[in-house]
């Protein structure tokens, strides 16, 4: 009887373990439910809707009508503005993003070395990122106004003929870069935190080996903070692909217009028409939501592609510390 009882005991223990495991799974599911619902409702459903809408003609008012790949065909063959929007966005990725990352890294480096007034300096550099983007853009439009703004007056007082800034197609994007760099407080704080985490003994060892400042930066600082650099690059690139707010304000108000919704986006001469602006214009000003959805899908794929490429390439420059690599 004993073996039988023993088997019965093992069975009941197994049953009890199974019940406990089911309870644990149910609890896990319950705890995860808010997140799951959020992801499904606010990410999954919109994503699936956008993909579906990109294959339809949808004007926001009548029911979406299936038109196959016509929106994609128009994107690649018929849309004459798209090329300019893509070129402008590439400019953001190739010029604005590196400027922003390098500036933030540079300021972070300086702040990490500062001896006096550290708190004040950190506040000064972080403060711009607290300014609402639209307000900051409007402020810059005023300060950089070539005729009435204070900047060109100051430049004029020291004998420099200030450029036309946001009103010239050649200067509009560099001026936007200045605005973006000015508002890089978040990135500066991230770099600063990483730089302060670099172990001092590594620098001391480098000093003993006779390393100069550049060698220390190259062989100690950069390898140690390389995961943070990677994070900064990926997030800034994604932000660059979605570059909208400041460009929208400058596009709308750069020509002296009174309202944000007036005039043609992209002023002057389409130089500030970035991909997200063109997407917004198609969806919410031309009510061509089917085509705007197709543009959004392509943007998503491009963002995924670029991020994946950077992450794959990062293995060669991101320093891995500790662990087995698993």
């Amino acid at each position, binding site marked *: 009887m004993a073996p039988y009882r023993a088997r019965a005991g093992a069975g009941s223990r197994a049953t009890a373990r199974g019940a406990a495991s089911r309870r644990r799974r149910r609890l896990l599911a319950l705890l995860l439910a808010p997140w799951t619902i959020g992801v499904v409702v606010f990410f999954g459903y919109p994503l*699936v809707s956008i993909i579906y809408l990109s294959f339809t003609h949808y004007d926001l008012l*009548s*029911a979406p009508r299936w038109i196959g790949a016509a929106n994609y065909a128009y994107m690649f063959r018929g849309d004459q503005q798209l090329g300019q929007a893509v070129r402008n966005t590439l400019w953001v990725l190739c010029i604005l993003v590196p400027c922003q990352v390098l500036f933030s890294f540079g300021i972070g480096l300086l702040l990490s070395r500062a001896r006096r007034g550290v708190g004040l300096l950190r506040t000064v550099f972080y403060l711009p990122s607290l300014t609402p983007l639209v307000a900051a853009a409007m402020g810059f439009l005023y300060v950089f*106004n070539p*005729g009435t703004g204070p900047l060109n007056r100051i430049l004029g007082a020291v004998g420099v003929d200030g450029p036309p800034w946001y009103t010239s197609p050649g200067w509009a994007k560099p001026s936007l870069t200045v605005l973006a760099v000015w508002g890089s407080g978040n990135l500066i704080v991230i770099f600063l935190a990483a730089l302060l985490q670099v172990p001092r003994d590594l620098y001391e060892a480098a000093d003993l080996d006779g390393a100069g400042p550049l060698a220390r930066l190259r062989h100690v600082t950069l390898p140690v903070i390389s995961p943070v650099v990677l994070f900064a690059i990926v997030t800034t690139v994604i932000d660059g692909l979605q570059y909208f707010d400041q460009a929208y304000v400058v596009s709308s108000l750069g020509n002296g*217009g*009174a309202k944000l919704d007036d005039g043609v986006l992209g002023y002057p*001469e389409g130089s500030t028409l970035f991909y997200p602006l063109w997407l917004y214009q198609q969806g919410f000003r031309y009510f*061509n939501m089917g085509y705007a959805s197709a543009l959004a899908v392509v943007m998503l794929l491009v963002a995924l592609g670029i991020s994946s490429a950077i992450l794959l390439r990062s293995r060669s420059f991101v320093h891995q510390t500790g662990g087995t690599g698993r």
Partner: protein
Amino acid sequence: MRRRILAGTLAVLLAATGCASRPGNERPAPFDPHRSTDLTVWNGWNGREAAAFHSVVADFTRLHPNVHVSIVDGVDDSTIMTSIRGGYPPDVAAIGSTTTMGTYCSTGAFRDLTGYLRRDHVTTRYAPVIRTLLDFHGTQCVMPGGVDTFGLYYNTDLFAKAGVRRPPRTWSEFVADAKKLTTYNKDGSIRTLGFDPLFSFQQNTAIHWSPSFGASLYDDRGNSALASDPGWRDMFTAQRELVRAIGYQKLQRFQSGLGAEMSSSNAFQAGRVAMQFDGEWRTAFIADQAAHLAYDTATLPVADDDAGTYGAGFVDTGVFGIPQGAKEPGAGWELVKYLTQTRAAQVKFYGALGNVPSLPSAATDPAFTKRPHFGTFVDIMNNPDSGSGTPTTLGRADKDALDQFAERWQAGRVPDLTAGLRGLARQIDDLTRNANPP
């Protein structure tokens, strides 16, 4: 098959969440003045203009004490569209121009008003250009409110100083006057500009200039007329000559130093430019912000070989519509009728706004005809040669494409105008095809 199932499921999902339209009954809804009715009205006005609207709506509610009107100001097109799509639209929507009218009418987002007009015997004989604007492929889904017309403002002091006796009537007179009125600083920069010919400067848009050259956006078959209508070529050539005469870079530099359009430092109000194309509302701004400015108004100069059309100009109108899904369309129509068909209401409201009333009997009121400098704009509205931006399902996409082309052209980035216009026409036809797939 799977794709169809997926498409069907998603369409049902989208429809369930309110993304699809609800085709409505186009029969005119009755209005019972004895029943207590709550009416919601959305409009795009703010501040002083919104206060004037509230006042005229209050007059309506005094006539119909059982109608309780709730007004929401400062609402834009996309909000109205979202509300219609979501199934919670206002009973009446006021829109500032006819630019997006085509979208509202073609999708049935605004009710077709033909039945209401017939039932209530509304047979107003609007100015020809307003009649053209209201007709959308044989239907009418909006009623006209205040009309915007564009004319020439000129500084009489600067005219006298330069020895110019009267406003120019033809383009060659205009160019000669603009040059004569332009003065330069010692370093060669512009001190006072006769006329700023750059497109994208305030109300300087190609479409606003087009009636002066008899240019139309579309031909009779609905195709873009930008390449086929010689008026466009004449207009762009004339504009470029004036830009060249002064210098593109000089103009840009001068322009970038001017005050904002709607501020008291507006270039014309500040005496920085002697002539300016602008809407009728500028008279109210000048009265408010630059009362001592010596100026007058005239119609826009026309092409030399088209001198007979002098007096015409660009016209657009604000409109009222009753959205599909409105809970009280009958009472909504009653309010729209009051706002658009009652002389007193139009005189009061558009007198306060400084717009030209669309109702012919109101437009002849001394409040407008005797108002200083304002008669010009009433005449422009009534001129049979006046033109407008044809409302289409493209909304503003065609005008935006035209403006972008105009900016490239004036900067010298379009080497061959004929080829450029052909490309632009193709672009607009492509936009039309994409907006109206088979």
